[in-house]
């Protein structure tokens, strides 16, 4: 151990790890609050730091474009949409009504079991180590991939969005009196 604490603190390794821990906590703890909040509005709002932390994780992994998309679409679009829906359905919840149903216990058990099994399976595996640096121009490469060879997926995705837009309008339309 030739490096001192100060040196370590100033090296990128430490800060990387620190950022990872922060973002991981930012994902998991608000996530827990999302599902356990009694107040529906609070639950939706807790989604915001969760999704933002996910974007942070993307940044750590070097996918800047994706992080931007995540913030724009998820935090800026979907959460707002959810907030609108909550407002329109007055689903703020009454204090005396339970927000969870009778499956809380067994649901937790099931989820825990799945998590346990999957973690166990993951631990058995030798995963690739990864390279310290990756070739640059990630965004460029992403664009190239989207426009060919994954052009079809790209176009289909746009159709899906169109259909969803129309569908949402039709379904949510008020009944003619």
């Amino acid at each position: 151990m030739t490096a001192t604490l100060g040196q370590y603190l100033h090296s990128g390794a430490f800060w990387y790890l620190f950022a990872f821990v922060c973002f991981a906590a930012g994902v998991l703890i608000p996530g827990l609050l999302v599902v356990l909040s009694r107040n529906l509005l609070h639950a939706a709002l807790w989604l915001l730091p969760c999704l933002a932390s996910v974007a942070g994780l993307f940044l750590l992994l070097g996918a800047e474009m994706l992080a931007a998309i995540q913030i724009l679409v998820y935090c800026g679009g979907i959460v707002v949409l959810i907030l609108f829906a909550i407002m329109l359905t007055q689903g703020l919840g009454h204090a005396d009504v339970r927000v969870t149903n009778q499956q809380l216990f067994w649901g937790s058990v099931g989820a825990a079991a799945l998590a346990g099994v999957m973690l166990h399976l993951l631990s058995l595996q030798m995963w690739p180590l990864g390279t310290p640096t990756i070739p640059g121009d990630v965004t460029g490469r992403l664009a190239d991939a989207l426009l060919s060879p994954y052009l079809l997926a790209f176009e289909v995705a746009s159709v899906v969005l169109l259909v969803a837009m129309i569908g949402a309008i039709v379904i949510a339309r008020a009944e003619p009196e």
Partner: protein
Amino acid sequence: MVLGGFELFLIPGLPFVAFVLIAAFLLKRGEKAAPFVLIAALTGSLVITIQALASIAGGKPISVSLPWLQVGGLSLDLGVLLDHLSGLMMITVCTVSLLVQVYSIGYMKGEIGYGRYFAYMSLFSGSMLGLVIADNIVQTYIFWELVGICSYLLIGFWYRRPSAAAAAKKAFVVTRFGDLGFLTAILILSFQKPAVFGFDQLSHSIRLMGPGVVTAVALLIFSGAVGKSAQFPLHIWLPDAMEGPTPVSALIHAATMVAAGVYLVARAYFIFAAAPAALLVVAIIGTATLFFAATMGVAENDIKRVLAYSTISQLGYMMMALGVGGYTAGVFHLTTHAFFKALLFLTAGSVIHSVHSNDMWQMGGLGKRMPITAFTCLIGALALAGIFPLSGFWSKDEILTAAWYSHLPGHQIIFVVALAGVVMTAFYMFRLWFLTFCGEPRSEQAEHAHESPWVMAVPLLILATLAVIAGGLKLHIPWTTGGIGEMIRFGDEKETVSVFIIGLSLVVSLLGIGVAWAAYRANLISPAAFNARFPGLHRLLKNAWYFNRAWELFATRVVLAGARMAAWFDRHVVNGMVDGVAWLAGWAGRRLRVAQTGQMQFYALVFIFALVAGLVVVFGRGQSLLSLVMRP
């Protein structure tokens, strides 16, 4: 032979054609012509039979057959067989039927259903002839059943009368009992290898079958004969069958259909000869029948019922004869009995027609008023009683001789019983004659009785002539080359003549007549006093030994009990199983329904649990994920 033997098919065919014509065209409007169509057909059949018989002239029989059905390994043919046995029988059937139809023109005049009557009569004639001429046992069975149907239709001719309808049903059901045995015999034969039904082929293949099978077949065939020929214990239908018109009784229930049973045993005699146990059974039943029926005839007051019991008794004599080995004797008596019994029934019919009653105690003094009827009836009575030189004397003696010289164990007892039967036969017959035709009229109608018209009287005279001369068959059968002893025989029967037996039978017959004369004509013995001294006997005989009651008890106790058990089984076990399966499905469904909550979150939870379980099962052994997914 005009058509190479195929014209024999016309013998039953012509009456069937008559049936179709009458049924189609002559039921209402042209009904006056109906009897003549039938008479023409019967005459044609008779002519063809005579011509065919003459062409054999003592030689080999004619047999022609057409293939009919081939199913699997079985083949059935339709065929005709004309030998001396069938030829003689057919001449008898045609002759008696002809005379009865002529008689019926007068007897049934003015009746509703006149056309229907002759339609049924033609159907019956055709069926009877078909039965006689059949060359294989299945064909015999087919016509056997047809004859049964015709009997049902004719007994119940006046169907609006409840007693007639009941009698027809009883006849059919009781004979059905026997027919079941007959059918079983045919089924057993169909399982033999090879499966043959023709009488000629059977006589050869019978040697290849085991003795148990042969005895079973013989007994089952005999059971059919027991039903049709009204042998004990299936005799109960014949007295009730008198509900039908008297010509029907004369033709069907005296001369022809009831004789079919005897004819069947004679036809299939080679089977019986191979099964001595069966022959013993035949003899015993025949003897029992002749005795019991004679006792019942003694106590009857209805003129037709006396004759019915007489018929049963005489059929018993024929069966007994066949059983003890007197093949010729049985067939001989069959022929003579046909003539004189038909005669007796027709005379009874004339009497009933005049007096409008069946009760003999309403009659009396008819001899002066109906001389032809009285005379012909006397001829018939003497023939039945077996008085020399009438036909009945010869045939009855042959039977008694056969019984005495038979090799059957216990034949002496049979002989004694038969002799006792002769006494009773003579007695009841002349009781009938004296009560009906002698003394003073006992009712208004008897006073004003008159002779029958010629259309009814002429057949009586013809039949009376036949009853007298039919004994001549012993010497010579017309259109053949010899007497009945040579033409119709089985194996090497030797003809024995015993003067002692002849004399004995004459004596007992005269004894019977004498007792009847003393009781009913000369008033030397009083029947009423006799009945008072033996009330139990009188009741027993009057109630026909309670046979009807016994069968009734059997049907209600035994058969119904069995039926109730079967019904319970069906309702609770069979239905129970079916219901049980349905109940099980419902129960399982109710139990499984709990899983279908309709709540999506519950389904998702189940899904995740299943996924976890699947993962554990697949990856439980600790391999890595990638190694399973990517094969090298």
